[in-house]
C-alpha cells in the first residue's frame, strides 16, 4: 500500500471521526455546538421567495448521493 493511499484513507477517517466527535459534543448539556440535524434544518428552511431552495438542494444532494453509491 502506497504512502499516499495511507495518508488519504487516514484523512478520510479523521474527518469521519471528527464528525462523530462533534455530534457527541453537540449533545452535551449546554453545548454551543448544534447537532448536525439542526444545521441541516437551517439549510432546509432557506427559501428564495416562495421557492424552497434549501429543501430542493438538500433533497437533490441526498437523492444524488444514493444514486451515486447504489446505482451508478
Amino acid at each position, binding site marked *: 500500500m502506497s504512502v499516499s493511499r495511507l495518508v488519504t484513507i487516514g484523512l478520510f477517517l479523521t474527518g469521519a471521526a*471528527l464528525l462523530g466527535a*462533534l455530534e457527541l459534543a453537540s449533545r452535551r448539556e449546554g453545548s454551543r*455546538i448544534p447537532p448536525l440535524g439542526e444545521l441541516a434544518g437551517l439549510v432546509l428552511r432557506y427559501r428564495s421567495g416562495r421557492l424552497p431552495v434549501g429543501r430542493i438542494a438538500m433533497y437533490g444532494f441526498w437523492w444524488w448521493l444514493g444514486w451515486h453509491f447504489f*446505482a451508478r
Partner: protein
Amino acid sequence: MEPPSQITANAVAPWSRPVFLVPVFGLVSVVGGLFPSFSLEANLYVLAIGGVMTWLGLSGRLPRRPESRRLGAGAAWWLVPALLLALVELVSAIYDSTPAHPTISLLLDPILDLYLARAIAYFLWLGAFWSLVRR
C-alpha cells in the same frame, strides 16, 4: 414526563411512526441491496425512492419537527470536518481517483459490493433521507 400535546398527537400520521417505518425501511433496504450497481433495476429503485421522499418533503404533507434553537457561532465547528473531507476528496479527484489517491467512492465500492453492507447502507441512506423530510 409530560403527555404529548393534542396538536402533536393529531399531527403525526400513524404510518409515519417508527414502529411502522423501521420495518418498511428494512424491507426496502433488503430489496435494494439485491440490485447491483449499473443495473436498470438499481437506477429505477433509487429513482422511485428518491422521488417519493422528495415529494413527501416538498409537498408538506408531513408535520415537521419544531425548530429547537437559534444557531450560534458554535456551528462553525462543523466546517472543520466538512472542509477536511471536501479537500481530500477534491485532491483525490484531481488525481483521477487512483488506488494511490482514492476518492470515497473508490474506497466504498468494494464494500458496497457485499450484500449485507449494501443493505445496511441503504437503510442508513433512507433513515437520513427521512430525517431530512421531517425537518
